[in-house]
């Protein structure tokens, strides 16, 4: 096995092999025909979920071009910045963090080409917490938890970065046989949407496991909200089916 490179953030949530796997293909994040093409196709459905949840939570004007001005957002496990950039365009003050230095370099270079002001850092949730960073109004925790070393502790650390009245959105994959068939074997080995080895089915999490991880935290959890792929239209849509891809919302009550 290849030795993980040293250009990684240190911390207990970091799984060096996972980070190395993403570092190797970091240059391809923004290639619409490259290895991340499936993620580009997946992006609109998660963006619209985030937008709708945030509009509702923060009571913002849906007709505004930048409805979220003045709100602080943390994109944890930002990869190439596929979510950080749209969030910045919608007005959020974005901090984007990834454990891979090469991801951060790719993301940072792309965002500055676009003229977007985003704070990119090679770091981890636990480091941010130690430093006293935040708190954040919105935390995006999208397709990250299935790649970290201690998902329970990681999720609790993230929730502690939330501001009172804040919202965290967690997206991941369900540990069902259907997910094994579709998201793991189908997507990686049959359709070749994703490089083989992108996901470890054993690390997928059931919605009730996410709930249990956060039971000690002062937060309300809603969901799961399912997302599924329509092979006829080639589009991802929100659906009642949470067996494969799903999202949860984590709300921290506002101070009284």
């Amino acid at each position, binding site marked *: 096995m290849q030795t993980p490179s040293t250009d990684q953030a240190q911390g207990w949530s970091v799984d060096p092999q996972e980070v190395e796997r993403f570092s190797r293909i970091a240059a391809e994040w923004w290639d*619409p025909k490259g290895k991340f093409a499936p993620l580009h196709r997946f992006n*609109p459905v998660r*963006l619209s979920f985030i937008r709708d949840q945030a509009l509702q939570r923060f009571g913002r004007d849906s007709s505004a071009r930048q409805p979220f001005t003045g709100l602080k957002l943390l994109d944890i496990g930002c990869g190439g910045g596929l979510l950080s950039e749209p969030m910045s365009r919608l007005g959020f003050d974005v901090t984007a963090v990834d454990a891979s230095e090469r991801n951060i370099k790719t993301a940072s270079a792309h965002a500055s*080409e*676009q003229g977007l002001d985003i704070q990119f850092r090679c770091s981890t949730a636990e480091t941010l917490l130690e430093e006293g960073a935040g708190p954040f109004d919105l935390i995006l925790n999208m397709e990250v938890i299935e790649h970290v070393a201690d998902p329970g502790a990681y999720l609790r650390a993230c929730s502690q970065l939330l501001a009172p009245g804040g919202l965290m959105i967690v997206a991941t994959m369900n540990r069902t046989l259907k997910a094994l068939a579709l998201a793991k074997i189908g997507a990686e080995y049959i359709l070749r949407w994703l490089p083989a080895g992108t996901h470890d089915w054993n690390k997928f999490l059931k919605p009730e496991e996410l709930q249990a991880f956060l039971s000690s935290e002062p937060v309300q959890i809603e969901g799961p909200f399912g997302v599924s792929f329509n092979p006829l239209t080639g589009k991802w849509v929100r659906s009642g089916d949470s067996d494969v891809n799903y999202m949860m919302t984590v709300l921290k009550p506002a101070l009284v």
Partner: protein
Amino acid sequence: MTLNAPAPSQPNFDADVIIVGAGMAGMTLALALVSGGLRPLLIDPQTFDAQLASEFDGRSSAIAYSSFRLWKAIGVGEALVSKAQNIEQILVTDGRTPGAANGAASPFFLRFDSAEIADRTDGEPLGYMLENRSIRAALAQAVMDAAIPVLAPATVVSASVDAAAAEVTLSDGRVLRAPLVVGAEGRHSIIRQAAKIGTVGWDYAQSGVVATVAMAKPHEGVAHEYFLPSGPFAILPLTGNRASLVWTEKTDRAEALRSARPEVFEAHLRRRFGDFLGEIEVLGPRFVYPLSLQLAEDMAAPRLVLMGDAAHGVHPIAGQGLNLGLKDAAALAEVLTDAIRLGEDIGSFVVLERYAAWRRFDNVMLAAATDVFVRLFSNDNPMLRFVRGAGMAVVNLIGPARKFFMQEAGGAVGDLPKLLRGEPL
């Protein structure tokens, strides 16, 4: 008119979307984008009011009811209602001499009636006939009312893209910058060349002759299509008991007709149509334009996208050229509006590919269908005459198939953009 762009999202952008070509498709796109909250800018080589002159465009267009819904949704329907002639019936006749219209029943004769699809269209007609001049005037007025910046006359000489934007350079040296540039400037698209998108196509060696006539006999909203050996001939009803005649001929004959004296031209028409036309008077100038099929090999590249005739010049046989351009406008406006709401980069290939994928199938199918139609009907081979005649008779007998053809001609088949369903963005 001078450049007076409202504050764009980034200080170095002149607009969200630069539309090269302020024709009917380009202006429709601009208005649709404004309705979705985007800031377009139009550039055209002609002065903006030149296209209103009667010599500029003597053609008329068959407008599918879905296209008319789009115009209503973006606020130009009101201005066009009084100019629009409802098409209540379409009669298609095959033959050396027109037969069906004279009452002599021909077995090879196809009839489409709006009453048959009324259940699906809320009593809308099959479509509308409008003079391009009226369409251009209504759109231009709406563009001015919406304070959309227009640079005209201004000629785009080149376009280039970088990571964040596309730039167009004008002949006077000015450079304009936006996240996205749309090529809506017709068959000789500079934007298509800049995007290095090739074309496929061929010349039909036919030209369209267009003239507007006043008719003595009431046309009652009936559109006639005749398939003559030398090419199709259509009589399309206009308001005020006028009709637009579209005559396709071999190019050399068409040129001779263009320069023929009025009485020769009218005599020619009578010879073609027998007594059917009744007394007619040719109004205004005649227009002759060569017909060809030209399809762009793709509709999108990073930061550059094509619509209308820049993407697909089809044979006008089915009256679908402008409708395709309007469908492009509706689909592109919806894709871009959705993308901007999600904070996406509207010039990115990921976003533009959604539009291209949405429109590709429809455009290529229509181009192929009209091409087959032209080849089938513009031919005097007796075997082909039998085949097409039998085909028409069969289509006439099978209600569902005919309804489908009418819906398709009306633009109501498939995954329709919101604007074509009459819904706002």
